[in-house]
């Protein structure tokens, strides 16, 4: 009765391996004097990112009453930056996070994110630390570093910063049957990335210097060729997106503009308007130390370390059995 619905979907030896990896992670940060913190899973504010949907929770001060609408956190980023601005110093967290609508072989609506921030680091220094952590968990993994432009130029002969919407769409449709209309360059860049480029990334590959338009909460700067890029990187291991890191934006006014831009894009897409985390802007105004931060999917890390193909192998009870 291996398939009885009460049973965990992951084999127990994998869950023991998972516990060992989590212990390795805690030791890694203890050795570097990075403080473990916890921040709320339930918040009064939701993520602004138009493509992440927060789960809503009704809160009442008495059973049966609804006094507040709260949101399950899709990432501990906002709260951790408020800690940094308050003077916490280097911090990390193993956080349970929640994303509505995300279920599949490599997605579960709740998952574990390892997020950490290092004062005085830029994105390059943080990539080196991510590599060190990865080698602790996956000794012998090969590691490469490529800029977003190098990846697109070498594989597709396309400059992702300067190619027109029409060129991107045409390049994409050579590889992917995606007849829909979309005027966002990021849509076609993401499709090329997920359908064409990612599956070919063997071993560990850090892709850095994303297009400035895909900065999220990273600073912007110019690359060697004077193109505006984001101080943002992603780590892929065997074709799986594993981590996303930034040299963190610390300009409060720019942060406020990006929150507003997200909210406008949400409105344009017909997505719900939810309370924005303005306290983050206040925290940045008070002063966020110069730092770099990264979020890494722990479930996927365990899956890759064990050579598995799906999250069902490493999460005890996946969404259908939760």
């Amino acid at each position, binding site marked *: 009765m291996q398939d009885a619905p009460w049973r965990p979907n992951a084999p127990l030896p994998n869950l023991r391996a998972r516990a060992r990896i989590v212990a390795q992670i805690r030791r890694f940060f203890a050795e570097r004097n990075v403080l473990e913190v916890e921040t709320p899973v339930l918040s009064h504010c939701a993520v602004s990112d138009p493509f992440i949907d927060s789960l809503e929770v009704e809160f009442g001060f008495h059973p049966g009453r609804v006094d507040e609408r709260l949101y399950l956190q899709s990432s501990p980023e906002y709260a951790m930056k408020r800690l940094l601005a308050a003077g916490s110093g280097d911090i990390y967290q193993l956080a349970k996070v929640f994303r509505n609508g*995300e279920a599949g*072989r490599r997605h579960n609506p709740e998952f574990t994110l390892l997020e950490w921030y290092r004062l005085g680091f830029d994105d390059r220094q943080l990539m080196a630390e991510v590599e060190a952590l990865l080698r602790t968990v996956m000794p012998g993994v090969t590691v490469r570093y490529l800029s977003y432009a190098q990846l697109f130029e070498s594989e597709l002969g396309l400059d992702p910063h300067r190619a027109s919407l029409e060129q991107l769409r045409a390049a994409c449709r050579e590889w992917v*049957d995606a007849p829909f209309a979309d005027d966002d360059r990021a849509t076609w860049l993401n499709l090329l*990335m997920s*359908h064409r480029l990612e599956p070919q990334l063997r071993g560990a590959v850090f892709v850095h210097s994303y297009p400035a338009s895909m900065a999220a909460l990273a600073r912007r700067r110019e690359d060697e060729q004077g193109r505006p890029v984001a101080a943002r990187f992603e780590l892929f291991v065997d074709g799986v997106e594993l981590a996303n890191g930034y040299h963190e934006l610390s300009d409060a006014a720019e942060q406020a503009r990006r929150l507003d831009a997200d909210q406008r894009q949400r409105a344009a897409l017909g997505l719900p308007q939810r309370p924005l985390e303005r306290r983050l802007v206040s925290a940045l105004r008070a002063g966020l130390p110069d730092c770099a931060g990264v979020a890494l999917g722990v479930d996927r890390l365990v899956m890759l370390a064990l050579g598995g193909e799906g999250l069902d192998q490493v999460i005890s009870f996946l969404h259908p059995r939760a």
Partner: protein
Amino acid sequence: MANYSSNQFKNGMKVMIDGDPCSMVDVEFVKPGKGQAFTRVRLRNLLTGRIWERTFKSNESVESADVMDTEMEYLYNDGEMWHFMDPKTFEQVAADKNAVGEAAKWLKEQDKVVVTLWNNNPISVTPPNFVELEVVETDPGLKGDTAQGGSKPATLSTGAVVRVPLFIERGDLLRIDTRIGEYVSRAN
């Protein structure tokens, strides 16, 4: 006809794509940490058998296809069309060569098959996984030589030709796995 939104897609769903009925073979949720979600679907065109992948945005919808798998009894072939009957309603349908395709090799009168109907017209026929068919022609069994695994061709009552062991003789009833088109055992 109903519409399905891409976040409702699941394996086995029948939808209309570019005017043809298609079945979803595999549905995968694809989403970068930053950026919009896509649904990547392996589709089988139920008219041509072509299998390919198409990617949908999260808010796209497609029309459902009125496709039904119905268990029917194979009646006869009139030289052009194959005739089937629904044993519950006694309704009969006639399928052409395109719809019957490879299944023609395994159809024995009165066998139960699955007929796929699109807007009540047959578009494909799936024979049972195992059928029992009589050998109408094969070389006489050769004694001794079993060193090479020993097999020979045999023609069955439906015209299909399969590899069989040397001891099989004309008139034997054979059990055949239609999914791979191979001899399984003697049935009598």
